[in-house]
């Protein structure tokens, strides 16, 4: 049965449509939300924004109900007018555009298109703030649904340890960085970068538990580059505030279906790789198990794996 081009297009749209219909906002909002009450000062809000690298905070009453929102812009104005020690309720935006936690993704899309803000509190039926959604969250969710990005964030749900976001300027700021070029198709050679990175962590006195989790994660990712990624790639590692950031990029063919690749036992490894004790379909799962945050982005140009290991709170 041959499809004409119109039918093909229709099928494609239907596919995209299902991305929008499936899923609720609670699947991808940030939770628990970072909130303040109106009695806190603008200075408190400023500190919280800085520490968590966020640009807006929902303001709630004693019952967690949404009463307003304070944005970076409000902070700037308060600073300019020397009102930074005022309580928030004097300067916050009331009548806040917000989303409901049972909204479908398609409804969120159209809401965001008609409202120009970057950040929206999500409230439940009782008007209690249960999460926050940014345009970026929605985009990431849609990419995930398309199957070429995988995200795992073990800590976000159960801890409020902020994961530091790296910008390029941070990376060049200090000498706490590591880089290694992978250039071998020889499985016997795979793992050299991770071994060096382990030494790097030990030299920087990273505790043994985090050192182990980070080096195992990196090792699996490095082996993947050699087995699946054509043998050419880069490793970058950074230490920022005791958090270990690792990025592994390869220029191989990409992962066709990341969700499938994440399944234990699924592998596309060659017999040669299996003979070497790899290719058992455990690699990505080990990374997931040992790192606190994992993002895999795959395209036909290659794969980028970002891993973060965060120390346990003592």
């Amino acid at each position, binding site marked *: 049965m041959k499809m004409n081009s119109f039918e093909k297009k229709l099928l494609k749209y239907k596919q995209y449509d299902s991305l929008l219909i499936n899923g609720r906002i609670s699947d991808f909002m940030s939770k628990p939300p970072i909130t303040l009450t109106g009695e806190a000062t603008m200075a408190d809000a400023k500190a919280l924004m800085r520490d968590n690298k966020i640009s807006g905070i929902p303001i709630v009453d004693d019952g967690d109900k949404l009463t307003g929102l304070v944005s970076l812009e409000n902070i700037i104005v308060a600073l300019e007018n020397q009102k930074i020690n005022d309580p928030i309720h004097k300067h916050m935006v009331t009548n806040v555009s917000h989303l409901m936690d049972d909204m479908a993704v398609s409804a969120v899309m159209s809401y965001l298109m008609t409202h120009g803000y970057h950040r929206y509190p999500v409230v439940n039926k009782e008007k209690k703030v249960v999460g926050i959604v940014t345009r970026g969250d929605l985009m990431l969710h849609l990419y995930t649904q398309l199957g070429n990005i995988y995200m795992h964030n073990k800590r976000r749900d159960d801890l409020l340890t902020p994961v530091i976001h790296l910008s390029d300027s941070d990376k060049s700021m200090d000498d706490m960085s590591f880089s290694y070029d992978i250039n071998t198709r020889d*499985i*016997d*050679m*795979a*793992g050299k970068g*991770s*071994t060096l990175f*382990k030494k790097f962590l030990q030299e920087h006195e990273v*505790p*043994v*538990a985090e*050192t*182990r989790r980070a*080096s*195992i994660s990196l*090792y*699996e990712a490095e082996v993947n580059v050699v087995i699946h990624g054509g043998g050419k790639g880069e490793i970058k590692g950074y230490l920022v505030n005791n958090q270990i950031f690792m990025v592994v990029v390869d220029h191989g063919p990409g992962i066709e279906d990341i969700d499938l690749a994440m399944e234990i036992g699924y592998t596309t490894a060659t017999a040669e790789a299996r003979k*070497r*004790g*790899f290719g*058992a379909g*455990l*690699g990505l*799962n*080990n990374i997931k*198990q*040992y790192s606190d945050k994992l993002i895999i982005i795959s395209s036909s140009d290659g794969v980028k794996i970002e891993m973060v290991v965060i120390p346990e709170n003592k």
Partner: protein
Amino acid sequence: MKIDEIAELLDATIHSRPDGSDIDINCGGASDLMSDVLTYMSDLPPNVPKRMILITGLMNPQVIRTSALVDIPAVLFTRGKVPGQQVIDKAKENDIAILSTDLKTYTVCGILYSKGLQSINDECK
């Protein structure tokens, strides 16, 4: 159990005996799958397995690399696999003792277990 005792029990050859490998081995684990070795480390405290011997029928530098990564101090190759210079050098570089025996993996595990060597656990530090 000292490396020498293990060698004697299994009629094994010692290929690498770095400084500090005169430790008391108190547990063992067997696997031919290096990712699997890494997987089961997740249930253990980070300072474990400092006194483990890894028993494997797999022979290549990755066995040493995996062991070094999780601080396994001793590796035993079974079924007559003799380590090459590359493997021996890498082991010495990482302070890992290396033994090889003609016995099969199952037999090796049986003998060591009967002599009191535990399966890898929290105490293996």
